[in-house]
């Protein structure tokens, strides 16, 4: 079973103060921690589970600058067998990302299954998986919360809305975009980390792939970014912990939330 995971390194902004760069088109990433996109981490875990059950190998493919190598090394430490980074520093859109990954896969692999996150936590576009499938001319299922392989097909659960799911049977090879919560991603073991230290991360340049070409241009571009203007918003209760808790307690009492 040849499994490919597409992973992206993203800034972890959950606790960061966001600043926009003077160009107005990007975020200041200084002192912001970078990590594997959460959804891709679930995809990697699903790939490792499939490998453990059916045997095979897992290759992780990323597009990005050398900072992504750290993420790829952790993927190797967790049990991935190969890591490939398509080196790219400039602005990317979903289309170009999918095009770069599809070209590497066509050149180097014959995957049975390709897993990636539904979306990234930075752009949240939810488009690379579907585009990749179309570029490789194989079927695709998105927002997958369960995977079971049956002969040359995968029976997957797709998350719909309001708690509803659907069961879909899809012929392999296929691209599945993995939803968060599908499994419990493992942490890398000390032994894994030590072993991964010396493993090779293959670096591919767009030129190696015969790109750029007319078909490898951005289709969308960021014009500017801004912090959303504050609306009316909440009345912020100020003061020390003691003071603000007391004030909120009185509001709850006034509104008869408790008596």
């Amino acid at each position: 079973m040849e499994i490919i995971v597409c992973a992206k390194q993203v800034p972890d902004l959950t606790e960061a103060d966001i600043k926009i760069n003077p160009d107005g088109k990007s975020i200041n990433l200084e002192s912001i921690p970078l990590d594997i996109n959460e959804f891709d981490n679930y995809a990697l875990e699903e790939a490792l589970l499939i490998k453990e059950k059916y045997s095979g190998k897992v290759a992780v493919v990323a597009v990005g600058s050398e900072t992504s190598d750290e993420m790829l090394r952790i993927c190797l430490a967790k049990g991935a067998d190969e890591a490939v980074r398509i080196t790219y520093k400039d602005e990317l859109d979903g289309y170009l990302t999918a095009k770069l990954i599809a070209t590497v896969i066509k050149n180097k692999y014959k995957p049975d299954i390709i897993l990636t996150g539904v979306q990234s936590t930075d752009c949240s576009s939810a488009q690379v998986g579907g585009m990749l499938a179309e570029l490789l001319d194989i079927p695709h299922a998105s927002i997958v919360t369960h995977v079971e392989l049956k002969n040359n097909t995968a029976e997957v659960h797709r998350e719909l809305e309001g708690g509803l799911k659907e069961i879909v049977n899809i012929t392999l090879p296929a691209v599945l975009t993995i939803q968060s919560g599908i499994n419990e991603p493992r942490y890398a073991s000390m032994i894994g980390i030590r072993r991964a230290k010396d493993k090779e991360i293959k670096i591919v340049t767009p030129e190696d792939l015969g790109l750029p070409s007319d078909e490898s241009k951005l289709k969308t571009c960021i014009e500017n970014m801004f912090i959303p203007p504050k609306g009316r918003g909440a009345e912020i209760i100020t003061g020390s912990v003691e003071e603000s808790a007391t004030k909120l307690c009185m509001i709850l009492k006034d509104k008869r939330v408790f008596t």
Partner: protein
Amino acid sequence: MSEILVLAEHSKGEIRDVTFEMLGIGRKLADSIGAKTAVLLLANDEALANKLSPYADTVLLNKDELFKDFNSEIYQSILTKLISERKPVLTLIGHTPAGIDLAPNLAISTGLPLATDCVQLKFENSKLKIMRQMYTGKINTNIGFTDAQEYIVMVRPASFQIPGQMDKSGEIIKLDMPVEKVDYKKFIDYIEPKITGVDITKSEIIVAVGRGIKEKENLSIIEKFSSSLNSAIAGSRPVIDKQILPLDRQVGSSGKTVKPKVYIAIGISGAFQHVMGMKDSELIIAINKDANAPIFEVANYGIVGDLFKVVPVLTQKINELKSSK
């Protein structure tokens, strides 16, 4: 005359709201560039076409029993053909589980640029510009398209009003496009959400917890607070994913929609998927240490602070007041 095409989304015999929302913004955009609106309905039920007719200049109906359940591959082949024939300047598709399964593939098979999850759209000098959010709503981004005359845009549900009175009586045109069954991607069945113990949709007071709680061991802080208010406990997606709370407590577009009298969001940043599930609560209170968290936009009252410090003190204050009666 150019045309804006909206893909109708329906499920279990009902047209979904996002369709009418797209027809509303679609009409505004069409008026701004002197275009017409058309809506494509792939269904087995002709009656659905009548519901769309007041909202568009044209209803394109392709009837087939294969459309009873959604299949992205069948939709894609019809849409690819239709777009190449009609050349709509803009095709609108909902940013929904169905749309996400379809639109990225369609962008490749038509060669058109795609922008997803858009919350604003406008034409400037006949070029489309859209706005979407990044970093879970902390940043808004204006996006343009390079060298394009036609576009596909996915529209975030509940971002545009459903138009009130619509005066159109769009002509229903029956398409005769052959529909071929695909065997490499098959719908098998639905899995209905499990009905379990607590039904949070019936609770009047909900204390909801998010990623800020970090570990399951910390949940006791929330449980104590919740019991001081006699409330139900719910959670946002990360808390369910980490199995800190069971699936039936999830509030948001992929979980439950709740409208309690009081909703207290603790350590929840307020990603739009969560807000969709709780914005109609009567009173919303948020406690979060990030002053820029989008949850404060929908809340009535907020405390910017560390939940591990604020919530125990708040619980204590409430219990004191209760016992002092």
